[in-house]
């Protein structure tokens, strides 16, 4: 019985790669998810993930089923969506969520149209939901580099990002790095979503980013603990999700996210920090 928890990963290379890729993505996405939540930008990942589509489609149109071309296209489209909506909200005062909500359907629709123009129908579902079992050595290497790079950048901007999220006015008074920090942070979110769309799909990557972060909120009041807990929950979900997908012959991305969803529901109910079953619940967010 215990063996069955490890056996698929020992026996099959593709399972091992999927596990390794998923664990790396979970670690890399956890701090980003926590900060998106703290900045009340939890839904932005979702919008950006949709926004990636036309870029990936354009890459597919120009270069065929090339991983590099599609990732590059996705990255550019994602950055354009995030950047344009930030520009609109900074210059016109439109709230950032409204601005993103306005641009991502444009992006998604044009992506679907581009795919139609391309003639051959690229598997749209595959792009949005991905397949962890298709992670090859090249993708795995890309995931590893993105994880290392994004953890390094995150560590470098951590203090400024913390202040920019808590008290942006104060940061603006003591440092010139506020806007750069904001931009780098959004860039990291886009980068992780793009590299994640290879492995578990752009939409599922949003789940792996946000669900562990939201779940962690019920376990600690300290920021660094939150990040660590989110990473652990994400890693456990990847592992359990891959087993579920292997034994029940289910699609891997959704299996992982369903597991993360289970962890979230459990945390909402039993978590010690304002969980539902605790006496001291907090009904009004303060």
């Amino acid at each position, binding site marked *: 019985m215990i063996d069955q928890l490890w056996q698929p990963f020992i026996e099959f290379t593709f399972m091992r790669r999927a596990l390794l890729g998923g664990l790396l993505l979970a670690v890399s996405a956890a701090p980003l998810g926590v900060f998106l939540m703290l900045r009340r930008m939890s839904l932005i990942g979702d919008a950006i993930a949709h926004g990636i589509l036309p870029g990936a489609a354009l890459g597919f149109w120009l270069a065929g089923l090339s991983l590099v071309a599609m990732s590059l296209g996705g990255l550019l489209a994602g950055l354009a969506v995030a950047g344009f909506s930030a520009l609109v909200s900074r210059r016109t005062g439109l709230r950032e969520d409204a601005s993103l909500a306005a641009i991502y359907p444009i992006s998604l629709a044009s992506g679907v149209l581009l795919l139609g123009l391309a003639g051959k129908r690229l598997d749209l579902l595959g792009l949005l939901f991905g397949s962890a079992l298709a992670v090859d050595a090249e993708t795995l290497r890309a995931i590893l580099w993105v994880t290392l790079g994004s953890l390094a950048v995150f560590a470098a901007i951590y203090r400024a990002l913390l202040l920019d999220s808590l*008290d942006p006015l104060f940061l603006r*008074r003591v440092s010139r790095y506020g806007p750069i920090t904001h931009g780098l942070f959004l860039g990291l979110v886009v980068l992780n979503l793009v590299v994640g769309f290879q492995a578990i799909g752009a939409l599922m990557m949003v789940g792996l980013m946000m669900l562990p972060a939201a779940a962690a909120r019920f376990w600690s*009041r*300290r920021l660094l603990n939150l990040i660590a807990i989110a990473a652990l929950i994400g890693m456990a979900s990847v592992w359990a999700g891959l087993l579920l997908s292997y034994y029940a012959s289910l699609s891997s991305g959704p299996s992982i996210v369903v597991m993360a969803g289970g962890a979230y529901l459990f945390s909402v109910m039993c978590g010690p920090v304002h969980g539902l079953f605790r006496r001291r619940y907090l009904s009004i967010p303060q």
Partner: protein
Amino acid sequence: MGRTFRMILCDQLQWGAAGCPLTPPLDLELPKGSLTAVIGSNGCGKSSFLKVIAGLQRPLSGRISVSAPRFGGIGYLVQQQAIDRQFPIDLRELVSAGFWGQRLDAGQRRQRLEQVLFEWQLDGLEARPLQALSGGELQRALLARASLMQASLLLLDEADAALDDTGQTLFWRHIHDWVRTGRTLVVVSHDLGRVRQEIGQCLVIDRLGCRYGPSGSLIGEAAYCQVA
């Protein structure tokens, strides 16, 4: 007055929403190390004036120059703190942000932090999460953060409003300490009695024209106007 002694210079300055300035053009010169109160009725433009000084809002017309470094030179405490109380950090981390950009080793930081927490009667609350702080405690924490900064100009917008009697006493004692160490202060307050007692010079902001002078005479006049 030489440039080196001047902190703030307003030259025909007007501010407010686009197209409707709140006051006639203001000429004002505040020397370094001065302590000035800004008073006036609600909506007269006191907070906007501080924002213009802090460089967070553009003036409508005229010029303002502030002789403090652009970053870290101005400490600014806004009127209504929009700090998210659920943010998962504790009081120590909030106050320590005042060290931004200063080169101190860990020992110096710890010593300085302990001293400031003691001065604002926050010792013992270091490990409290923001959520567990009262409004007055949070306000004192933000004042403590301002104490840690090396700012030569401090702009305090009704920073005394949330404080109890003890807090008020601490607040005014610090105001005088800050002035004594050479900082320039501009303080918005509605506590006219206290302002008259503690602050020598004040600026009354009024849509008919701003007046700058000794608080003793200006505040008496304002009170008289309200009666009439």
